[in-house]
């Protein structure tokens, strides 16, 4: 069953007087339980595609259906709800709140879902245990290493139990050893039934995915190993 259905998607930015065609007629379908890497050099449009898939940005034209919902039909509030329930984000720059400790960062999505304090705490603890940070729960981001911060971010991504994990260069700011640990966790999440979409420019990282989608100049250049082609 398809989780992501993108057809004829365009995205145009206006920079000064120049129009930049970031996405040019992109169509892509990703099924549930897939592990997909979207690769391409910088400026290829892969980050734009990831932002649109993550409902952080909107397309200029075309259709994007996520989990059966036509994303173009939702307003800002609606998109907040979709992000909260359907997507877990892992960013290159971690994007943790610097003033909150690991536990508070992880429980944040549940706060906005209106889950009670006791249940939140319980689930945040479990998520942090899952990424091996049971001893770092009350540390603030700046007291944690890069790899540990990224694991906090993964715990935050999975706490709402979303069908889709969206990772944008998750190993980009990490050394190869901690990067490998983070990838291992993403694999585990995929084995547990979640769809993982990974954006990277690193061919070694991409090689770990079952399906690799290459992007260049805003178009899909190749799609290898996928079930839909």
């Amino acid at each position, binding site marked *: 069953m398809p989780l992501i259905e993108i057809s004829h998607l365009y995205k145009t930015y206006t920079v000064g007087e120049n129009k930049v065609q970031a996405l040019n007629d992109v169509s892509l379908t990703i099924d549930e339980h897939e592990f997909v890497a979207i690769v391409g050099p910088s400026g290829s449009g892969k980050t734009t595609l990831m932002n649109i898939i993550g409902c*952080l940005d909107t397309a200029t034209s075309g259709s994007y259906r996520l989990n059966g919902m036509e994303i173009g039909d939702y307003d800002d*509030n609606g998109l907040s709800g979709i*992000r909260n329930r359907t997507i877990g*984000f892992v960013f290159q720059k971690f*994007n943790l*709140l610097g003033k*909150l400790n690991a536990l508070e960062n992880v429980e944040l999505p549940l706060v*906005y879902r209106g889950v009670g*304090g006791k249940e939140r705490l319980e689930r945040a603890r479990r998520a942090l245990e899952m990424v091996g940070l049971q001893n770092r729960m009350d540390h603030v981001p700046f007291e944690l290493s890069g790899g540990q911060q990224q694991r906090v971010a993964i715990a*935050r991504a999975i706490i709402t139990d979303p069908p889709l994990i969206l990772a944008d260069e998750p190993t980009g700011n990490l050394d190869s050893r901690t990067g490998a640990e983070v990838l291992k966790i993403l694999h585990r999440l995929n084995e547990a039934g979640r769809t993982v979409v990974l954006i990277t420019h690193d061919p070694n990282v991409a090689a770990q995915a079952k399906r690799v989608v290459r992007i260049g100049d805003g178009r899909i250049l190749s799609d290898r190993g996928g079930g839909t082609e």
Partner: protein
Amino acid sequence: MKFEQAVKMAVKSIRSNKMRSFLTILGIVIGISSVIILIGIGSGSKETITSAIEGMGTNLLTVSLTGSDAASLTDSELKTIRSYASVSDAVPDLTGTATAKAGSESYTTAVEGTLPGYENVRSVHAALGRFLTQNDDDNRYRVADVGVEVLQNLYPDMDSSEYETLIGKNISLNGTDFEIAGILESKGTSSAGSSDNRVLIPLSTAERFLKNKEVKTYYVAAKTSDDISLASAELNRFFLQKYDSDSSQFRILSQTELLETSSSTVGTLTMMLAGIAAISLLVGGIGIMNIMLVSVVERTREIGIRKAVGARRKDILLQFVIEAIFISCVGGLAGIGIGVLAGVLIQVFSSMKVALSVPVMMAAFGFSAAVGIIFGLYPAAKASKLKPIDALSFE
């Protein structure tokens, strides 16, 4: 998101941004407390001066002979003035200075030669002993009613409760001994100087003692406060006639005129203080704006992260509104507290009176709170409208 959760989040945000919260609160505190203190001092001085002038007697008219060769009133002229229906009494006041001495202490004081009627005209009474009598004047007795400030300086070690023992003792004025007949009640200090630093002696004695017969000041009491303008007009007519219609030779000042002059002076002072207060309120407000706007980058990224994980616009706004209200109220209450405390301390440790006004407090609080809330909320409201990706990459 639940309201309770938004409150918790706002409090956490305030506590984890201690410096930012502190500086914002400081801006509010400085603005509010300076307004309270400065306006308090202004209206306090006004009250002090008004009550001091009213304490001199509201029925009082002062006639000053301003011409250098203006002749003093003769006894019969004084009697004529006293005979007016609107006038209850009129007394001459012959003034000079003298050095008072007792033991090794000396003090320069004002000497006023006058008549017994002075007691009621100026409402100055003897707290101890007696006031000057007609008999003192008739016989040119060297007796004196002494102000407490003179005694405090001549007898620095003596407690005021022992002043009674001084009655009947001698005080030396420029080397001449005067018997202390009475001690004047304290009138306090006003803008016109101390009313307690003076010695009253009989007019006839003073003419010899000061070697001067030219009385330049007369105090006239109107029968009631309604008679003041009538008495003033009659005096004016009398003196015009006496000085051949030369109005530059004398000046008649009523207490109400004095009150008007000084309250307009104090009014100007209060306006000036209020102006300074308004500037400090503005500076405090600009400080708040600065801090809030400087933290926009940090806040916008924070809002981007919160929206990415599912916060809706109203969740963001609720948190920031609560935060801004909380900071404004804490700052406002602290500002009022510090302003009131400083006002009370100024009143206790200086002779200044500070009149604290609740409407002023409310207005200052309202202004600072509005600045705090508007500038705390404005960047947040703007950032919460951005697409999450724009907020996340905001620099």
